[in-house]
């Protein structure tokens, strides 16, 4: 009747050292594969792809290897008349890519490359009567978009332009029996969503509304015998979920509830020794997405070869200090 615990086995010869140079080479080379089929297929999320690549490079102290001017020009070209920003040229604007673009420009200390007032207008225009946010004008509602909205506004220092109380009310209406959060009221808890909602509550100064002991229990139960964390009960471990769970635990002040050493071993085992980069699980194909969350996870676990990362915005702490943004964390 029941199901066996789903997990992976870490082989004894799995990588156990951090291969930072290889990862930097992997990311530096990734953007030069512009004629690649797979690369072209992922155009619909390009702006986020660039954010993942640049952030992990910055965390490794290698941001200077990326083409700053080309990227800033690209972002400018992706801002639309309505103020929103699209994943790439020819694509439609969306909150997901608006956040990524603003994050990138913060790394480069160049937010003024955008028409900031218009970005703010765009975000404000997507807030609904019930406080929720649509991802774009087509009306998909999701707590991810609530996070994108407040994170972008916080980075721009314009939080007061939306109805924060209503936005908070909506996110809290997505809280579940297990203390977690889902996409919409009634949706099942999910580590990615919990990250967005706890990050949202941090940025809006409402973390006291979280049932931290209950949620922390659910989150620390995501750790499997391999050391990796899954995103929901009865699912496989994954480097990106490891980040979302770990960052959520950090935000609610319960990061010590998991076995840090075991998680570190799992993340290190997801490196590809040949190509550089991290995969979702040991032995799978690497990508920039999991490479960022692998490195960011190791940073939260205290690896001193990497810059400290902020758990709420997944950006280097020194960048947030520069713009004077320090989101709340529970102690």
């Amino acid at each position, binding site marked *: 009747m029941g199901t066996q615990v789903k997990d992976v086995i870490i082989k004894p010869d799995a990588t156990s050292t951090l291969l930072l140079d290889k990862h930097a080479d992997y990311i530096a080379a990734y953007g030069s594969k512009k004629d690649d089929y797979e690369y072209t297929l992922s155009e*619909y999320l390009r702006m986020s792809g660039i954010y993942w690549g640049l952030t992990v490079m910055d965390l490794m102290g290698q941001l200077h290897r990326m083409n700053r001017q080309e990227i800033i020009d690209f972002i400018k070209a992706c801002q639309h008349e309505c103020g929103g920003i699209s994943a790439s040229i020819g694509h439609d604007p969306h909150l997901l890519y608006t956040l990524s673009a603003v994050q990138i420009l913060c790394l480069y200390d160049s937010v003024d490359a955008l028409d900031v007032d218009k970005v703010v207008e765009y975000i404000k225009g997507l807030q609904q009567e019930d406080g929720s946010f649509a991802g774009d004008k087509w009306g998909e509602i999701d707590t991810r978009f609530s996070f994108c909205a407040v994170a972008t506004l916080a980075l721009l220092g314009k939080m007061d332009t939306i109805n924060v109380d209503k936005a908070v009310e909506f996110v809290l209406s997505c*809280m579940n029996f297990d203390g977690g959060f889902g996409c919409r009221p009634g949706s099942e808890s999910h580590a990615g969503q919990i990250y967005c909602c706890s990050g949202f509550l941090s940025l809006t100064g409402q973390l006291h509304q979280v049932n931290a002991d209950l949620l922390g229990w659910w989150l620390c139960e995501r750790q499997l015998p391999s050391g990796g964390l899954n995103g929901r009960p009865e699912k496989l471990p994954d480097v990106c979920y490891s980040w979302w769970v770990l960052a959520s635990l950090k935000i609610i002040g319960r990061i010590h509830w998991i076995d840090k050493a075991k998680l570190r071993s799992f993340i290190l085992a997801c490196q590809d020794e040949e190509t550089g980069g991290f995969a979702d699980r040991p032995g799978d194909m690497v990508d920039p997405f999991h490479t960022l969350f692998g490195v960011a996870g190791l940073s939260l676990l205290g690896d001193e070869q990497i810059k400290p990362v902020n758990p709420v915005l997944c950006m280097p702490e020194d960048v947030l200090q520069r713009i004077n943004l320090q989101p709340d964390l529970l102690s």
Partner: protein
Amino acid sequence: MHGRVKVKSTAQQEEEKRKEREKKLKIYVAARDACFSKRKEGIWDDEALQVTQQLLSSNPDFATLWNYRREILMHLETVRDEEEVQKIYQAELSFLESCLKVNPKSYGSWHHRGWVSTRLPRPDWARELGLCDRCLSLDDRNFHCWDYRRMVVKMSGVPVDQELAFTDRLIGSNFSNYSSWHYRSTLLPLLHPESPEPHSPCREPRRASPPPSPQTHSHRVCEEQLLKEYELVQNAFFTDPNDQSAWFYYRWLLGRAEREEMISCVYVSRDEERVAVAFSRPVNAQSVGLLLVLDGQPQRVEWRSVHPRFKHSPVWICDLPPGTISDVTNEHNLTVHWTEKHTHRDCALYTGRSESWCRDSATDQELFRSELSVEKTSVLQSELQSCNQLQELEPLNKWCLLTIILLMRALDPLGYEKETLAHFQTLKEVDSMRSAYYSDLCSKFMIENTILKMEYAEVRVFSISDKNLTTLCHLDQLLLVTHINLSSNQLQRLPPQFAMLQCLEVLEADNNSIDNLEGLFHLPKLEEVLLKNNQISTLADLQPLASCPKLKRLDLRGNPVTQTANIESELTELLPSVTDLQL
């Protein structure tokens, strides 16, 4: 990006793959550019539908193409008659079904399906529910499909009890289905809400569609239904004791009710001319409309939380204008109004008294007990017996051990203290990855027990030494405590919340691992601080103590800081009020 296994291939295979990809790339780019230029020209025709269909069937996450399709479909709505529109949208649903078969986890496809369903001239919700049934039978954890189902249920008014029966079926065929248990947790409070009067039977089930947001924060369920649920969950965990879904659900069922929102304590000190107020939950006193009335006169006071770190806190303090209550020959009557919640608490300061308070005690509030009424203790008792039986069969099952602890706490937290501690010990051994969680939870329970003991004894001394405490909590309950003994535990810090102990005079915390005193912040009555054998290593760590004006005695023996050069003179400068310093 997920679950793609890396396969080794020869150079020749690589070359073949490269060529194949090059070919695919050309076709893809041509189709994409065709879509983009058609859209730019404002063309909304059948051909555009075809090209976008071709691209989306292999790449359903290409959101902009769904947007383009919606523009085309909305255009067609204006130029075709209803019958044709119905057909076009039905074709769209069939296309979507094929997309979802290939990629059942695409946000874009599911959102588009929802959009189409609401624009269909004659929607067929039964078909949509059928699609969800089929999809969930292939993957009963697909949260996209569950969410779509909830939308269909809402739009078409499927009765709540029918959906509950659906979860019965899924759970019946496979207990290990977290999504179904989750769905139950949202349906039960709708179908069997906790009745406003504590002992009345369950209300008749409502045969209406759920309200737009079925989530309530308490999620409470009426008692009768709760008892039936216990039975169902027990079946589940006796069948598969290692399946976590049922245990998570069970812990929710055992959860306690929300505390009433109220002012739980008002404390007034004549010496400091200060008022401290405790609330049943963290609030921002500056924005909730807090009003202090002294002898019938509303006072203009400034509320501050006990530590600048907190914008929301369960304890707030304010200073009265100098001279207002300092004369001991006067009697005063205080009322604190929480206007937002239409509640208040009075407190009288009698002649000759230096302080006074008014509050509900933790024992009155049954703060740390289950929400079940006392009459049902027998039910909890039998639940505990069942779990004990299971534990005999599966002595190392962590879920069962933890549940036994929770049941014991619901029944008699003090009576079962010894067993609880023993079970925690086993838990830390069988589930060592989470030992820090168990240590913190055990600390919380021991603190709750100590608060209960203190309340029963009606004293203001809180003593909890040698209990392996790793964390401090419930500090808002210790507002009136004058002596605290935390010696010989495993504490690493006195967190900012510690500043809620506004009446504290003596702190004993020898033999811990404390290296942070942030919480010893503006404690107006604190006189003695005993911190022998801790980890305080720098003068900066002691800085918070400088904010405690009455500090006289400080014991720092056995701390690294005592090795600092000129420590004694440095300390005299930092803490001039201290007269008895031990290094």
